[in-house]
């Protein structure tokens, strides 16, 4: 799938170049190597690197300074994402299947933590929930009003799967609306998620502009 945007994403460029003459291929290989080196330099030398924006997406514009919402367990996104490099969709597995990304079932937490970091206070608390047969009552941070029909599934399909974007880098796509979760413990709202924010992105990336696409 192609998008009406200026720069081409790397994977589709690669597909095209393999069909061309050798000189083109060499150019792209060199370019990719250069970019990789640049990325390495950026990561190495800045204290806190910005999450790269996937080349095939014109990112939505807008910021929001949400408050840190106290949660029943201070879930550390940073440990899971940054240190352990766990994919967003490993836990938020419904994102590609449903309108909602879903909070992972407690059984999923238990699956790992019955053996990992079992002595940490947050895990002890989690185990107490599990033993009681209850799930923590998390506070909602990201949401849109009831009159907005938003589908995670459609966005993931378009920007990840249809665009041949590597799934292992999916946090770059998620981060466009959810901010840099890898730097947070509990989720904080960093993007406004209002109509202007959505609409600008739809316009820039050729998303639907009909009112009823979202308001139905």
């Amino acid at each position: 799938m192609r998008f009406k945007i200026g720069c081409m994403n790397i994977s589709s460029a690669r597909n095209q170049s393999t069909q061309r003459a050798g000189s083109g291929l060499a150019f792209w290989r060199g370019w990719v190597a250069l970019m990789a080196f640049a990325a390495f330099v950026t990561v190495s030398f800045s204290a806190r690197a910005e999450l790269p924006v996937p080349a095939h997406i014109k990112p939505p514009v807008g910021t929001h300074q949400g408050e840190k919402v106290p949660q029943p367990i201070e879930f550390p996104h940073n440990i899971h994402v940054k240190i352990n490099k766990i994919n967003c969709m490993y836990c938020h597995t419904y994102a590609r299947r449903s309108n909602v990304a879903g909070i992972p079932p407690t059984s999923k937490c238990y699956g790992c933590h019955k053996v990992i970091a079992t002595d940490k206070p947050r895990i002890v608390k989690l185990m107490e929930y599990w033993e009681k047969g209850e799930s923590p009552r998390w506070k909602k941070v990201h949401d849109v009003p009831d009159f907005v029909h938003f589908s995670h599934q459609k966005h993931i399909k378009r920007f990840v799967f249809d665009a041949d974007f590597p799934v292992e880098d999916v946090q770059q796509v998620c981060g466009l609306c959810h901010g840099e979760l890898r730097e947070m413990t509990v989720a904080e709202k960093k993007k406004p998620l209002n109509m202007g924010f959505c609409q600008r992105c739809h316009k820039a990336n050729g998303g639907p502009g009909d009112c009823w696409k979202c308001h139905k």
Partner: protein
Amino acid sequence: MSSVKLDRRQFLKMLGVGGAGTALAGCDLPTTITLEEGKEEVVSYLLPEEYVIPGVGVYFASTCTQCNAGCGIHGRVREGRVLKIEGNPDSPVNTGKTCMMGQAGVQTHFNPDRITAPMMRKSGRLQTVTWDEATAELNKHVGAQSNLNGGRFAWVTGSVSGHQSVLINELMAQLGSTNHYAHEVVNASVWSAVCQDMLGDAMPRLRIDKAGTILSLGADFLGTWISPVHFAREYAKFRSPAKRGVLVQVETKMTLTGGNADLWVPARAGTEGILALGIANFMVDRGWNKVEIPAAVRAELAEYKIEKVAELTGVAGSKIQRIASLLSERAPGLVLAGAPVESSEQGYASVSAAMLLNIIIGAVGTTIEPATRFSEKALQAKAGDTKSLLAFAKGLQEKRFDVVFISGANPVYTAPDALKLVDGFESVPFKVVFSQFPDETTQKADLVLPMYSAMEDWATHVPAYQTDGAVLSVQQPLMEPLYKDTKGFGDVVIALLKQRSKNYEQFPDYYAYLQTAMMNLPEAVTGPKPVKKEFWNGLLQKGLMVTKGDRATLSAKLSVPVFAHAAHHEGGHDDFMLVPSARMGMFDGRHANVPWIQEAPDQITKVVWDSWAELHPEAAAKLGVANGDLIRIASEHGSIETQVFIHKGIRPDVIGVPLGQGHEEYGRYAKGRGANPLKILNPVLEQKTGELAMYATKVKVSKTRKTVKLVKMGGSDTQAGRQFVLTVSADKLRRTEGEG
């Protein structure tokens, strides 16, 4: 209120100027409209089933219980809550369709006025108690240790079938009681009685789809009669362009079916049978009969000459001839008879006349087919009627009961005042009501047992009217119970049965019983089931089983009914025949607590959220009343007040008041709204069957000085020359071949 005064023009101007500015800026306003971070909770599943995806619906098969037709349904369940009902395409009853009552099932289930805990009468007042207290009280009066005399126990239900019927019968047998009263206001019991006597089968299959002409004597088969969703499907085939069947509806007040008819014939109330005989005589005279008619029958029919019939019925002779021609030319015909005819004084004779006409036009065997019965007799439907209500009221008056159970019925609401049921009911020492809602009967109870909704409970249903094959439909819960202190009907009855019989000890609940009972049904009924558990799982997946069943055989008994008197009503100045009509939606009043049903306009008058009295323009002119005027409608046994609605789809000598409103209890949406015409009915009986003749009450109508605003959808009945719908007369079309 603001002190700034704006007129409409200024207000619109301001909107125009301000609106342009805010339209764009508004997009970037913070989304605090419904959402503030950290205010709402989101709770994940603990250990979800594999197929559960939040945000994606899962469909479970079940059975609709909004009326007794037994339609199969699929409930869309998301995040553990049932959100939407669809028809089950596998069910031959409704083939994937539902009606408005079925759709509104979710509002019955999520209704805010559900009873959420048991209640017991203490010092004259119903008070919330625990289940332990309620059970102790129940056992004290009905349990094995009680000294209940079984003969003095009565149970009033609606129509019942399946395993609920088995359990009720078991408990009745254990207690030694035979006083089971199955009561329904909307029923077809006289039709059934006639079918049984003249055809040898109480509920034959009616092939509306095969018919070329249908003559319906007041049968609102698209609205409330027997199995409306099924009939509506068949009707669509009957009306397919290739065939274009003709529908003739004879009734005093237009129903949904009447509104669809090609020819609407407002015959005098109570003379529909005579009309049928007139048509029969005319057809036999012309030799249009499809079966041999014995001379004796001919002679009896000859009494009904067209002129005489025209005079008695008020239907022009030419129209009678036309209906006869239609039945003959556009064969096969089918004659039906519904509530207004069945439920008149000579209802049995009138329906018999309709059936005789069926036999004469050769409908028996073509458009009337033998029924298929579910082979397990104990599970077959016990259809409710009004005769049982009369019998129950009589029993109450004679003080024959010490303990009364009520489930699936609301007799305090449906019984006419003349039966004095309320007084008798109040004097019964111990009254137990199994109910979901605080209705009129519940309020008079000594013990109220809060029931699961139909979407929380287990049950099996065997429809009284079977179509292709004999169906047993399973009602399985579509979600967990909303309230922890409600229970399943079967669970309560099983607990009572356990006290007297060891056979039930193995069943912890109704589910266990149902599963065992279904798995143990003989293979002759269910077909082969090598692995019983698989059979059960398959049953739940499909929601029903269609069995071969037993095929009845139809006979045809040619006999001309005798009318004791030509019961017709001469309307006087303020004298009217009351038509307490049921309609799709409100039904007998059980759906008055459902907002979707209340706000759905009546199919004919378009009135919402209230009662009304339908009057013909001539009658209204005579009375000097206009739309919205409140009138008093008085019978010998009471009076009601409601607003006038004037239209032409009613005879000038009758007054139509719809059933369903006028609840004194029954929750916030139903209570204190409109009037209940059932209350003022005279206790007139149908002469042969002893059913309550609901369409035989004469009333006096008088003006009050009050007027209200008639709230209805749709402004006027005419297009006022605006040509929204362009029409051309058939005659003009013929002359111009559609070009002019």
